């Protein structure tokens, strides 16, 4: 069914607010970044020199940049997978709770309200090698915890700190998804003698796939772009470069190092990666999703 408007102007007028928001907050900054990527400029903007592709060449001849890409992939998929599986588990449990359901669910949603930097600081204190309760407990269990020196442990720390917040968000969607699964289907399956585990895998999980797909996209985007606050508050990208993700590097080079051209070039690369990620997700993964 197609809706037709009597005048040509009205649809544009109705679209205008959204178009303006997109243009001012997305297209304009993106264009600025694109332009900046071809210049080298001092911090105060007093002199500016066109350098062509030099910023990009610097980037792609730097082995550490590729290292940072691998770090980002490892980090993002860890956050997405851990965050989603923990949330799914909690949602399945919460769905079964009869008494105090609301209180239980509310408590699980709470961490989402915590600002990323605060979440970072919280976990940083818990894991502090000399005074953090978790670190001390690990030590008594025979694990020598020191994320200041051990890159893998630092990665685990930032993954936990970033995942924790996201679990609430995922939980909310999974819970809504679970509640939308028709009870009759599950009841029919149990009459046929399917075990709870089998019922989950053959009925509930496939029906949750649109939610899962949506969350995968959202979580990856979150891990890619919104976690620099957590990283800044916990490891500052270290030790070495073991937790320097691409976005943290943009922040570090641009805002701390004041290298605007180099930072802009990295942003352009990131834009490209997001585009690619979206295409891959919708082309290949979405095909396997069952919407009804």
């Amino acid at each position, binding site marked *: 069914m197609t809706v037709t408007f009597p005048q040509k102007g009205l649809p544009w007028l109705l679209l205008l607010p959204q178009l303006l928001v997109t243009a001012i907050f997305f297209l304009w900054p993106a264009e600025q970044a694109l332009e900046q990527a071809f210049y080298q400029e001092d911090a105060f903007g*007093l002199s500016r020199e066109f350098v062509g592709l030099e910023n990009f060449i610097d980037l792609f001849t730097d082995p550490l940049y590729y290292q940072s890409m691998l770090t980002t992939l490892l980090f993002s998929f860890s956050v997405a997978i851990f965050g989603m599986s923990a949330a799914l588990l909690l949602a399945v449990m919460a769905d079964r709770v009869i008494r105090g359901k609301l209180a239980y669910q509310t408590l699980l949603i709470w961490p989402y309200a915590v600002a990323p930097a605060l979440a970072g600081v919280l976990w940083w204190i818990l894991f502090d090698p000399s005074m953090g309760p978790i670190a001390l407990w690990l030590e008594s269990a025979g694990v020598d915890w020191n994320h200041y020196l051990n890159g893998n442990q630092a990665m685990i720390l930032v993954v936990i700190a970033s995942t924790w917040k996201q679990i609430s968000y995922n939980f909310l969607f999974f819970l809504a998804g679970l509640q939308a699964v028709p009870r009759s289907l599950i009841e029919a399956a149990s009459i046929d003698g399917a075990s709870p585990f089998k019922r989950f895998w053959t009925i509930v999980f496939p029906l949750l796939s649109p939610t899962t797909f949506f969350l995968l996209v959202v979580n990856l985007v979150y891990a890619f772009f919104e976690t620099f606050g957590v990283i800044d508050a916990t490891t500052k990208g270290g030790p070495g470069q073991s937790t320097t993700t691409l976005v943290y590097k943009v922040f570090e080079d641009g805002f701390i190092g004041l290298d605007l051209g180099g930072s802009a070039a990295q942003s352009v690369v990131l834009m490209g990666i997001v585009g690619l990620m979206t295409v891959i997700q919708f082309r290949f993964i979405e095909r396997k999703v069952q919407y009804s």
Partner: protein
Amino acid sequence: MHNLKLASVVVGMSIAGSALAATEVEWWHAMGGANGEKVNEIAKGFNDSQDAYEVKPVYKGNYTETMTSAIAAFRAKQQPAIVQVFEVGTASMMAAKGAIYPVHQLMRESGQPFDESAYLSAVTGYYTSSEGKMLSMPFNSSTPVLYYNKDLFKKAGITQAPKTWQEVESSAKKLQASGVSCGFTTSWQSWVQLENFSARHNVPFATLENGFGGLKTELAFNGPLQVAHVKKMGEWQKSGVFSYSGRTNDGAAKFYSQECAMFTESSAGYAGIKRNAKFDFGVAELPYWEGKVKQPSNTIIGGASLWVLQGHTKEEYKGVASFLSYLSRASVQADWHQFSGYLPITHAAYDLTKGQGFYAANPGTETGVIQMTTGTPTANTKGLRLGNFVQIRGVIDEALESVWSGDVDAQTALDTAVKRGNALLRKFEKAND
């Protein structure tokens, strides 16, 4: 008639109002907590001392945030008149010739009496042009010293504070034998263990007088002495003589908890240590390697200075100049020095503090000043002037961490850091030439 009276009152009030409205001078700073309150107090002291100008201090977050917001504000033509910039941002500020108003020039053009010899050259040296002119006003300067836990030392049977790294090692071993798990830890590893280490041993950190000689400077901290020190620290990390605790000053926690018996940290850390240490502690000078240098040289400073930015009215600059004069007064300086633990910036403030008996009553507070003012600063101990220094420090942090974790040997790590740092220097040179 009644209305006319009212109108004249209103007019009269507005005239009086404009006569009273002092010229506002905005001062962006990075001093949080107790020091932030002290900054407000200093501004209030100035505002109360006269009524032509009003200094408004605005806290802008940590050093990087303050500098970044000032630069962003400058690009948007909303910059404050005064901004506090940390020492690693010095080269960036200096290179921005169109953005800054050199302090010596400001003082002259505003007719403020200004005698550069009244200031401690070890402090101002960091902020002077190649012609020896002060470009910014030092505000809070500090230098690294060695804090040690006297109680643990006594328990281990050590009677003297270590002067040399050899003594640090032997003390640490005795401490470990008495049950202490870690000998020493450090804050700001690049600043303490490489930048100040180089100055202390009078070896260059970078070529061309540590960058004072121009933008073509190249890093030189991969010399034999620095490599030997970093290598030794890598070994110490394994044996527990040294314990790494992060890039900033997180090591304080290990010193407070008595996990580590020694701590190399800024002289400005004194107040915090005094508040948190539940034990008797002492302050010693930053150690040096015996046999590698006859007489240890002066260390260099950290901290921040006040830069005046372009784009304000003549009247405002008069206010800035008069405020900077006020800041340099011996009484104001001495009060700030004694309160915060930062170094005094004028000879008069130092003498006043001494005369008040402050050092005698607070042993250890003078250590930094003495160490800073040892001998005459050389090309290797005047300070550092390197572009993109914030990023270079990051590169150094990464290199050192790779040594502490045992992944890379000291020579390779420092060579790589020099190479990566030089690329950043060339980038800065290109953007600012």
